[in-house]
């Protein structure tokens, strides 16, 4: 009976979302305030109902109710409780339900915090949210009902895909969805602006925090997925340009562009039409990502659904929203007036450059991801577009952008002085050049390219630091005043600097691992050793181990430093999940500062020895630490007083602290 309550709640939420779509939309059209006011309570109630529905499904997982098909297919009574809970969204139906819950939650937030918004804007935003919700709820109810029953109920479930029984992959989807779906708010705001045919100050001040929040979560989700792939897939790769990875990377890239163009719009009310277009494109690419993953059109690790009826349904939703919103854009965009003028060499100009490169990079990744599908559809030939293509195209597009990063914050709005910016960055440039020279001469095996790459990442540290130093007036005022000024800088200035430094950290990690990684491999008998990067690894033997729902062979290793001193032990194993007879590898990782030793077990050779592969991954942790710093940066910007989420003050915003614009 409980399970049926969840199902009913979902149906009710669907009906409510139809009300949320139609009534406020008509109300905004004819100027009826009572009709417009219907939006907020329906959005909140819709959230309560979808949350109830999701809670019911989670409960079915917790008590292992195998009379529910979905639970039977994806759970097992012996599974650890954590994975029983996370298993709720570790499958197609459950993850779509999670998608809906998050969408409804964001809608409720707009309803809750949006009381300061102009009534028609709020009504239109909630209406668009209602339409998105209704489409996806219909999709779930019609093709992917998670509450379907099974009679008679089996005694035991079929267990969750073992790859998903991992903490990293357990929180990867919710983070990713918070990002994807968070962009739906920007999308709804863009559509509302187009429906009304005007954009005002409230619009810009509202959209930027939502973009920041969605971007923050998406960054976390992608980073988590990448770290998971690194330690779980068994050979230590961190990014594969897999279509499904690209599907999450695309909204991130274009979302990053929107983050920057929204600054221009907020501060200078320029680039309005472009920002609206980016808001539409970002969510469209999020929908595309959902489609690519959910429809199974690209068969790959993540695609747990391969049912064409679902694919066609999501494709219809995709075409409706992307086509509809772009149509609306084409029809109404000319009503939005263009904003302030600026010189090409200015803060605005640098942000346009950022947008140009990020959009091109997005388009390149998009075309590369879809090209095999297009070629197959048109000619019937099967081709692959793999990592070599993306590396050859994406990297040259992104390097000029990275080089330009430190200049942006140093240029003034409207008309900047590039020569002065170069002068101020001279010290940072010289220091980065020193790094290049040092790396080239003193690091073993570093090529010129590697040295330049590492120099680039340091440029991304020194540049933003220069900006902070200049803005606090170091050297021009007394240290005490400078310190006070530093502490008084707007938080968004720290946000910018931190996010850019985070990018530098990630770049450093990627360059170091790609160019300085060392790999060793040998067939080892117990007691034999293998050397890698100054460490000697002794294979101590294999021991069997029985986990709750798996068995594994644990390979134990002891490692010694160059002087022969014992440093520690590391364990690497091969697991077999018994319910599905599914093998996985659990890499052995031992961390040394920011670098890691990565040990993977291979097969047994005819002579009884075990193939052992060991990698030295220099600075590898920076790849993910960098993303954490980017997220902290986004958090700082969100905490900036002028745009706390959901609390745009009705008072006229205080004049901006001049610190951000003072040429130091």
């Amino acid at each position: 009976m409980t399970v049926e309550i969840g199902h009913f709640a979902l149906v009710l939420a669907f009906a409510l979302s139809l009300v949320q779509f139609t009534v406020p939309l008509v109300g905004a059209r004819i100027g009826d305030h009572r009709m417009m006011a219907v939006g907020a309570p329906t959005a909140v109630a819709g959230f309560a109902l979808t949350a109830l529905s999701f809670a019911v499904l989670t409960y079915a997982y917790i008590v292992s109710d195998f009379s529910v098909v979905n639970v039977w297919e994806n759970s097992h009574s012996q599974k650890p409780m954590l994975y029983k809970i996370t298993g709720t969204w570790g499958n197609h139906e459950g993850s779509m339900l999670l998608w809906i819950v998050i969408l409804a939650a964001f809608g409720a937030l707009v309803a809750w915090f949006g009381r300061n918004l102009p009534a028609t804007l709020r009504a239109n935003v909630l209406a668009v949210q209602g339409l998105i919700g209704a489409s996806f709820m219909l999709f779930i109810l019609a093709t992917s009902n998670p509450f379907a029953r099974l009679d008679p109920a089996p005694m035991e479930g079929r267990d969750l895909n073992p790859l998903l029984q991992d903490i990293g992959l357990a929180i990867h989807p919710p983070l990713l969805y918070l990002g994807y779906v968070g962009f739906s708010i920007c999308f709804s705001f863009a559509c509302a602006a187009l429906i009304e045919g005007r954009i005002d100050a409230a619009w810009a001040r509202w959209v930027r925090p939502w973009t920041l929040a969605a971007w923050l979560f998406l960054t976390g989700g992608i980073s988590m997925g990448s770290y998971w792939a690194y330690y779980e897939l068994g050979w230590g790769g961190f990014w594969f340009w897999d279509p499904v990875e690209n599907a999450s990377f695309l909204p991130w890239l274009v979302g990053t562009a929107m983050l920057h163009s929204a600054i221009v719009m907020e501060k200078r009310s320029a680039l309005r039409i472009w920002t609206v277009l980016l808001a539409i494109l970002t969510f469209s690419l999020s929908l595309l990502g959902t489609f690519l993953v959910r429809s199974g059109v690209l068969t790959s690790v993540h695609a747990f659904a391969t049912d064409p009826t679902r694919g066609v349904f999501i494709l219809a939703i995709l075409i409706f929203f992307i086509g509809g919103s772009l149509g609306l854009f084409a029809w109404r965009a000319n009503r939005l007036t263009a904003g302030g003028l600026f010189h090409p060499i200015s803060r605005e100009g640098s942000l346009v450059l950022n947008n140009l490169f990020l959009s091109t990079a997005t388009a390149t990744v998009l075309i590369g991801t879809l090209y095999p599908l297009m070629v197959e559809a048109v000619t019937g030939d099967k081709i692959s577009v793999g990592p070599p293509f993306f590396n050859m195209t994406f990297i040259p597009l992104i390097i000029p952008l990275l080089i330009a990063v430190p200049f942006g914050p140093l240029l003034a709005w409207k008309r900047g002085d590039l020569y002065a910016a170069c002068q101020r960055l001279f010290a940072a440039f010289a220091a980065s050049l020193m790094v290049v020279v040092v790396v080239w001469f003193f690091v073993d095996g570093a090529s010129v390219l590697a040295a330049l790459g590492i120099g680039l990442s340091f440029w991304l540290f020194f540049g933003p630091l220069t900006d902070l130093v200049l803005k606090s007036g170091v050297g021009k005022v007394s240290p005490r005043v400078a310190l006070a000024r530093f502490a008084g800088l707007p938080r968004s200035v720290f946000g910018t600097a931190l996010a850019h430094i985070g990018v530098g950290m990630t770049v450093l990690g990627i360059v170091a691992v790609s160019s300085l990684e060392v790999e060793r491999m040998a067939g080892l008998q117990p007691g034999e050793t293998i050397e890698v990067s100054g460490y000697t690894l002794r294979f101590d033997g294999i021991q069997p181990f029985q986990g709750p729902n798996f068995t594994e062979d644990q390979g134990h290793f002891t490692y010694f430093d160059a002087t022969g001193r014992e440093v520690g032990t590391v364990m690497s194993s091969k697991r077999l999940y018994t319910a599905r007879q599914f093998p996985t590898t659990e890499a052995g990782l031992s961390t040394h500062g920011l670098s890691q030793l990565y040990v993977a077990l291979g097969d047994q050779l005819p002579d009884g020895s075990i193939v052992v592969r060991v990698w030295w991954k220099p600075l590898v942790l920076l790849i993910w630490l960098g993303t954490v710093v980017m997220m902290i940066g986004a958090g700082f910007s969100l905490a900036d007083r002028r745009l706390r989420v959901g609390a745009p003050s009705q008072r006229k915003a205080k004049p901006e602290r001049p610190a951000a614009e003072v040429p130091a």
Partner: protein
Amino acid sequence: MRQVIARTVVASLVALSLMAPPALAALDPDELLEDPALEERARGLSTGLRCMVCQNQSIDDSNAELARDLRVLVRERILAGDTDEEVIDYVVSRYGEFVLLQPRFNLRNAALWASPVLLILGGGAFVFFAARNRRRQEEDRLSEEEDRRLKELLEKQG
């Protein structure tokens, strides 16, 4: 025979889907060539060849049987004195272009390879001309001072 197997394998790719266990770390020590220079060439070629039963893995990363066969094949061809291009051509002739992770530069893939260049140039040109037009429009417009004087003149006349 191998060709037949390969075709069957490609045809059933979709059916295999993700539920196929992930390929565990590959490349056994007994496959390695003795000459380090040749081995390096073999590794380089391997990272650009797709393991066709896996999703988006190179044969260098995969431990599937087919990937192993291909690795051995690449090394056999290298030992037989083939250049890198000859090895690639040989593998493509047996398994089709699907095996290449880096699509070839040919007419069919022209749109793929040309798009990044065209987009950045086209986008740059668009931004440049849009900005110039905006400035010109703005320059043609009267300033506030001019507006005021025009109004005065009109009022005097009327």
